[in-house]
């Protein structure tokens, strides 16, 4: 092989390697962007409210339902309302108001909000069908069953204690009210949900492809180097034609 042809081949190979590695980087960036887009889309999907029974049932809930915005439509069950003792709002002492809501055949615990005291007029339960939007939160189950205080108030939003006092199973998450229609005044001051989550399934496959494409980009240069190192030696040694079958 004469030197000009050999130089031409090296130049050609180098150009090919540049093109291929740039393509690999572009594909890697594309998959990386896709990974971010998928996470973003999943988060957007999670932040759109869905009917409460699609997110949690009496049987349980998937992990991503915690912190999820939901809508609840039903009737409050006034005699099931319980007060959660010793809750402050902006430094003021008070209680939380938890009211069960009948949603079809299910019972959903709604944390309507904070009131300064048990005899506040805001504890009055709205009648008729109401639409509530809120955030799903776990029950305070870690306090155990023994949460009913001497005055009938609860020390925590315990699922088992509430279910016992209501005589019916409740949906496995609490709706922390953020908005209600029709709007009733006075109504309890909505409280801030404790748990907000942005946990969504991570698109591991796309993330792995991102890494893979970058490694491919490096690999192109590794192969380029191998070829440069080997090509002249084999040129000298190869006794046969370029290809047997061409």
């Amino acid at each position, binding site marked *: 092989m004469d030197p000009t042809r050999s130089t031409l081949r090296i130049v050609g190979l180098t150009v090919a390697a540049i093109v291929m590695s740039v393509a690999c980087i572009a594909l890697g960036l594309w998959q990386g962007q896709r990974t971010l887009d998928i996470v973003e889309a999943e988060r957007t999907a999670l932040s759109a409210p869905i009917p409460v029974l699609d997110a949690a049932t009496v049987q349980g809930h998937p992990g991503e339902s915690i912190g999820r915005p939901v809508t609840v439509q039903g009737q409050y069950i006034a005699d099931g309302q319980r007060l959660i003792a010793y809750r402050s709002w902006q430094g003021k002492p008070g209680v939380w108001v938890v009211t069960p809501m009948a949603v079809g055949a299910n019972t959903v615990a709604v944390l309507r909000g904070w009131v300064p005291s048990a005899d506040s007029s805001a504890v009055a339960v709205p009648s008729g069908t109401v639409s509530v939007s809120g955030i799903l939160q776990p029950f305070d189950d870690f306090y155990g069953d023994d949460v009913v205080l001497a005055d009938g108030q609860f020390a925590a939003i315990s699922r088992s204690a509430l279910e016992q006092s209501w005589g019916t199973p409740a949906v496995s998450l609490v709706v922390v009210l953020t908005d209600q229609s029709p709007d009733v005044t006075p109504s309890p001051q909505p409280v801030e949900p404790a748990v907000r989550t942005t946990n969504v*399934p991570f698109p*591991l*496959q796309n993330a*792995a*492809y991102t890494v*893979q494409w970058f*490694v*491919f980009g490096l*690999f192109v240069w590794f*192969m380029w180097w*191998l*070829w440069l190192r*080997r*090509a002249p030696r*084999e040129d000298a040694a*190869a*006794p*046969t034609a*370029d*290809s*047997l*079958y*061409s």
Partner: protein
Amino acid sequence: MKGLSGALLRYRIMAWITGVLLAFMCVFGLPAKYVFEATSGGFLGAVYSIGWMAHGWLYLLYVAAGLDICFRMRFNVLRTLAVLLAGTIPFASFFADHYVAKSVHAREAEITPLTA
């Protein structure tokens, strides 16, 4: 041509591994995802994702082994590209494997009488 049979063996092993995995992913994996929609999570979803990720990395090894044998055989660019791309098309790697093996054996048969 010392090392040619070793390079061929390496190539054939990678061609079979990537070929079988790719065939499996296409024959069982794709219907599981797009027809039965059974891969949105859980065990099948994990197998599906890992299968494709593994194919990506194995394909890298396939390309390494493929380039090695193509360099050694001094295939032209189109032939080399065909061998490399065969690792991404279902069942094509089996044909590529057969073709490469046949070429190597023919080359070896050609050389052996000369050196013997």
